[in-house]
């Protein structure tokens, strides 16, 4: 819609005003903040907590849109009554890197197609996303450049790019425009600002190295031909089936639903929580049959989901190259190394 300039000195008052106003409406501003030596997305109570210089976060911002645990319904067993619960509140999701913006766009598709998921969609409707252009790689594990997620042309309401003394703010939606005019002091970008934005964007490119040995568009077909690849057995030997890789993945959305009942056994809640295809019981049916019993088959399923199945269903790759699964894996499994191994043996 438009390009605005926000002086860095004006950021703190803007965030401050946002925090106060959202808090008064029962809402929250969520952004990157420090936790020990890491960063997380969490509620920002003070503008000083907001760390726009963060590298990456332990969990992706999907946790704001699809929480680790949420109530879907409350029920009364004696009266056989069920009430839907939609846990949503006004939220500003501040400082989302481009890889995660790509991931959220994919989640938007997942939860709006076919049978729309009102729980996700209502949270999404109430969430304003402020993106943040990455100018340096998070660390040696990220491979956003290879996955084409180093920049984005959408998926945000506002998008910040650090120009040194100020942020260039791409205003993409009316909600973003309202936020900016309500809380911020901004000016319209001049021609010089546009030049410096283009300069920053083009000069960042060399900082990011490609880690995939081939063009990502080949990934679905490479994986399609690699169903019986020896890699899966190797990964199965390494993998501990802990499920960390899927928990930290910004595009993993599988879940389980359980009923939790109060002590009097009269009332309860139907709760949805993250689940993982890496866990032994994920594909087991009540009769005992487990359709993905081996760890090798479960690792293969993860790779296939990220590089093939999701692409076939939604037209986007399921991996955005954030590197979180590699960073978190205690068994040192690397999805990008795996992709490369499959490519190498296909040559």
């Amino acid at each position, binding site marked *: 819609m438009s390009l605005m300039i926000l002086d860095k000195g004006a950021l703190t008052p803007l965030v401050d005003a946002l925090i106060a106003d959202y808090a008064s409406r029962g809402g929250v501003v969520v952004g990157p903040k420090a936790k020990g030596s890491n960063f997380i997305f969490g509620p920002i109570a003070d503008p000083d907590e907001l760390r726009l210089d963060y590298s990456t976060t332990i969990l992706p911002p999907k946790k704001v849109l699809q929480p680790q645990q949420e109530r879907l319904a409350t029920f009364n067993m004696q009266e056989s009554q069920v009430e839907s619960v939609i846990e949503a509140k006004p939220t500003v999701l501040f400082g989302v890197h481009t890889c995660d913006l790509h991931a959220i766009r994919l989640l938007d598709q997942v939860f709006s197609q076919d049978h729309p*998921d009102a729980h996700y969609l209502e949270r999404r409707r109430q969430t304003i996303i402020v993106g943040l252009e990455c100018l340096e790689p998070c660390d040696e594990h990220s491979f956003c450049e290879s996955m084409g997620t180093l920049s984005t042309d959408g998926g945000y309401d506002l998008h910040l790019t650090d120009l040194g003394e100020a942020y260039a703010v791409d205003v993409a939606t009316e909600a973003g425009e309202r936020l900016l005019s309500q809380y911020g002091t901004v000016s319209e970008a001049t021609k010089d600002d546009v030049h410096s934005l283009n300069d920053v964007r083009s000069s960042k490119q060399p900082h990011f190295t490609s880690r995939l040995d081939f063009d990502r568009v080949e990934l679905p077909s490479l994986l399609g031909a690699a169903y019986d690849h020896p890699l899966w057995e190797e990964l199965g030997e390494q993998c501990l089936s802990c499920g960390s890789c899927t928990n930290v993945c910004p595009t993993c959305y599988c*879940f389980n639903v359980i009923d939790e009942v109060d002590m009097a056994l009269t009332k309860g809640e139907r709760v949805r929580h993250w689940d993982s295809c890496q866990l032994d019981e*994920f594909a087991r049916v009540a009769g005992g049959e487990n359709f993905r019993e081996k760890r090798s088959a479960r690792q293969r399923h993860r790779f296939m989901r990220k590089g*093939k199945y999701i692409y076939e269903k939604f037209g986007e790759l399921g991996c955005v190259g954030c590197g979180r699964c590699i960073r978190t894996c205690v068994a040192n499994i690397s999805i990008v190394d795996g992709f490369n191994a499959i490519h190498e043996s296909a040559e």
Partner: protein
Amino acid sequence: MTTSVYKPEAARLVAVEQITDLEKMFTIELPNKRNLGHDPGQFVEVSVLGVGEAPISITSSPSRSNGSFELCVRRVGDVTNALHNMQPGDMVGIRGPFGHGFPIEKMRGKDMLFAPGGLGLAPLRSLINQVLDEHDAFGRVIILYGSKRPEELLFRDELEEWKKRDDVECLVTVDQGNETWDGHVGVITTLCPEISIDPNNTIAATCGPPIMYRFVLMELLDKGIPETQIYLSLERRMKCGVGKCGHCQINGLYCCQDGPVFTYAQVKGIEEAL
């Protein structure tokens, strides 16, 4: 705001009948005796509040929807055990119907060969009765049914009725007989040599435990039935029923959305299917 696709509707158990040691038949009414509006082969998510939800195929045929529908449920997990403890008048939650059932419009005019094993008769019964209720629109109706033991046979009254009908060829077998059983003994595929069919004009439908598919499919293909005319109903942990939760994935397919009924042609290259 749209309503939640995960909210079950309260429905009443109007009849509960023990049909084998492990299976009970539940007749269920939706509010105002509204018809479920299902296709044969579709399933519902059944809630027992406080215990959870489980996907169950609908065993009654749409042609007999008289303000109620039937589920044949084996007691095997938490939800199904809880269901088995319920009485007529008790309430359950229902979501659905979900998934792709049998495309009956593609089946009309054809001979029908049903080959269910064990509990696999439950989903096929919906289609069998639909076909029998408009038998003029179909050719021959052949039912080959096998179970492990005589006491595990489902719907015994209906099996007897089908056997007696002139317009139905119904053969029943058990893997292991006993003193009360004077019928055929042997696995379901041993019934196949007893029938001759016109393969190109035959639609086959099968459902059963995973181990059974391989052998039944081999027989059906051996008889020359085209892969596009063999239908299977697959069992998976269809937790949400709406293609989101991921539990029922068969490689890139979602059993709950793309199935649970598939043609053999659809799944034969899908490694995790069978």
